């Protein structure tokens, strides 16, 4: 699978910034004493300031004062995820002492979940619900478990139910509001409820704004309302970090970059270390060709991620070079940082340094397809600059080898999912096209013709057909040239005019026997017929392999709010494509 074109949804949600918020709370099970609540609130403040040790002390004290204080337990556990294993015994003992407490079963589930013991966690959440079917936290947890297994509908069912039993816990309601973002009406109601219960729980504002925007698809009126809300908060409480965070998120929702930048400066003025602490929690994941995930975490990852947005390659280079010095993990270096450095050098036309990076990558043991793509990018840059063509040809020859090897392996594995070796074949065709161009540039016409012919056999592309035609002309092979050029023309693509011009130059006397226009029309017809036949044969084979299942019914909306059901489209062949703007 090509890395850059395939994205996992979970990754993007993983990048969402975790919101911490200071707020008072009330709790429905056994209400914690005012003293316990005070200590808990102090802990939240410490957490917001990055004072984790002090926060943990306060949380411990709050738990001692109120043993069933769920919010305090949650923060206590979630801020020590790395030590999740060590809490198991302790919370198992709590359950033994209080076997009929939904709270402790839930908390044990939370501990198991933090320790990645999913099944045990689910069992405890279920027990909590058996004891108290209306226990909001357990409903939340069961929903989250369904969500992580990909069953969003079931997840939402549980979260919706949790809304009715959440009582006056603003933390729970705020999480529900955020989780239910795709159910914007529920999300809006919950966020507004939180703000009613506690106007200082400002983390609920962005959830409310986003829900409103989603509901009206960002109508001008909603935008104006949201902006008014944001500006009111910004002026009323300009010194409160939690408020500023909400305000910044608000400007992000409105896509007001000036607003985002302005608030960022204000945040830095109030708390210079704020973003550094945020970066500690940052992580990103990248799926590589084999499907393995590479995770890149911490401040260096955050800086790398932001540098991707920079417009000036020189600035990017500075960031990537610095990050390279800081990072230790080999996979992150080899799959993320060096490729970024290589591409940046290519943007800067700095081939010497790009070649140096390639030397490192050659020894890195990268997956074949990844390495092959990088080598071709390098070779293509050399061709564009018409320098270091020897080096370019070396790189490209290696990439051709890698693609050949990859195809062999994929074919022998008898890939079940369609497209595996087809992708590698298409890539090999591109590599061979590049090889042809490089050889032509070096004056090695015969070799170029061989590479271009092989490329076209693997995958008919107009660029390769045009270059082959030009190569034949150079070699004085008129008939072959006319064949390749009319093929290039028949694509009806961007090379059409170039192909036609070359044909007009070389067609000459042949015009009498058969006018060029007729030849071109025939070429276009032939190509269409050939493509159709090839596609049919291949697709019939693919379809024969596939198990035929009924398509689940659905009802969705158009942008203008019109409802569309799958059954409305019955009788038609429907190509259904799930996509996203990001």
């Amino acid at each position, binding site marked *: 699978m090509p890395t850059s074109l395939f994205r996992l949804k979970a990754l993007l949600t993983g990048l969402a910034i975790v919101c911490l918020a200071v707020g008072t709370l009330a709790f429905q099970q056994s209400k914690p004493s005012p003293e316990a609540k005070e200590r808990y609130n102090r802990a939240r403040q410490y957490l917001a300031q990055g004072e984790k040790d002090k926060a943990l002390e306060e949380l411990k004290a709050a738990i001692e004062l109120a043993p069933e204080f769920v919010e305090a337990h949650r923060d206590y556990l979630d801020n020590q995820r790395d030590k999740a294993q060590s809490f198991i015994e302790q919370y198992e003992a709590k359950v033994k002492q209080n076997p009929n407490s939904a709270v402790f079963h839930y908390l044990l589930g939370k501990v198991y979940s933090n320790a990645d013991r999913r099944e045990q966690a689910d069992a405890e959440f279920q027990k909590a619900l058996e004891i108290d079917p209306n226990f909001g936290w357990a409903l939340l947890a069961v929903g989250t478990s369904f969500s992580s297994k*990909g069953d969003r*509908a079931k997840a939402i069912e549980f979260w919706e139910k949790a809304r009715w039993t959440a009582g006056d816990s603003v933390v729970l309601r705020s999480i529900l509001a955020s989780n239910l973002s795709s159910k914007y009406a529920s999300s809006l109601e919950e966020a507004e409820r939180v703000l009613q219960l506690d106007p200082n729980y400002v983390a609920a504002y962005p959830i409310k704004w986003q829900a409103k925007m989603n509901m009206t698809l960002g109508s001008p009126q909603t935008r104006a309302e949201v902006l008014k809300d944001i500006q009111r908060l910004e002026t009323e409480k300009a010194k409160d970090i939690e408020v500023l965070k909400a305000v910044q998120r608000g400007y992000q929702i409105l896509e007001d970059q000036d607003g985002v930048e302005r608030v960022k400066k204000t945040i830095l003025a109030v708390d210079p270390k704020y973003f550094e602490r945020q970066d500690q929690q940052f992580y990103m994941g990248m799926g590589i060709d084999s499907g393995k995930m590479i995770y890149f975490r911490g401040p260096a990852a955050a800086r790398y991620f932001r540098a991707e947005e920079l417009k000036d390659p020189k600035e990017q280079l500075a960031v990537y070079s610095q990050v390279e010095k800081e990072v230790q993990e080999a996979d992150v270096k080899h799959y993320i940082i060096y490729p970024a450095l290589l591409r940046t050098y290519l943007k800067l036309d700095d081939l010497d340094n790009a070649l140096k990076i390639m030397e490192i990558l050659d020894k890195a043991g990268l997956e074949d397809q990844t390495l092959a793509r990088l080598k071709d990018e390098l070779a293509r840059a050399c061709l564009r600059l018409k320098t270091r063509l020897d080096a370019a040809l070396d790189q490209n020859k290696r990439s051709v080898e890698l693609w050949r090897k990859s195809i062999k392996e994929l074919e022998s594995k008898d890939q079940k999912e369609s497209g595996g070796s087809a992708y590698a074949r*298409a890539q090999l065709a591109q590599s061979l096209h590049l090889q042809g161009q490089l050889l032509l540039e070096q004056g090695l016409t015969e070799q170029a013709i061989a590479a271009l012919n092989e490329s076209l056999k693997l995958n008919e592309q107009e660029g390769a057909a045009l270059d082959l035609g030009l190569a034949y002309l150079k070699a004085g092979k008129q008939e072959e040239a006319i064949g390749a050029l009319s093929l290039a023309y028949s694509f009806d693509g961007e090379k059409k005019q170039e192909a036609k011009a070359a044909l007009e130059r070389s067609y000459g006397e042949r015009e009498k026997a058969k006018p060029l226009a007729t030849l071109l029309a025939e070429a276009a017809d032939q190509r269409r017929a050939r493509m159709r036949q090839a*596609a049919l044969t*291949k697709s019939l084979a693919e379809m024969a392999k596939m198990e035929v299942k*009924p398509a689940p019914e659905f009802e969705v909306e158009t942008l203008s709010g019109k409802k569309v059901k799958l059954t409305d489209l019955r009788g038609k*062949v429907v190509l259904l494509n799930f*996509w*996203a703007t990001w």
Partner: protein
Amino acid sequence: MEFPHLQKIHDEYKGKGAIVAMISIDQERYKVGPFLEKNPNSALMLLSNSEVESAYKVQGIPLTLIIDQKGMIRYRHTGFSPGQETELRGVIEALLN
């Protein structure tokens, strides 16, 4: 984004009994309108909800399916590969014949 070829398929087959329906899974639905203003598309543009995502087990995008005239799924592929357009056309042609 694999707009251009799906757009072509839609324009070419809409009179012949096949259409392209694109479902945006954006959580921020309000971004879809402005995006489509910049990148106009003649296919049927729809907004996702959690029910349809669950029912079709959408784990990664782009996810492409082809459903025949009787409502049966005949093709399913996650991700994008260069040869896919030919494959999609082939399945559609086979179903229309």
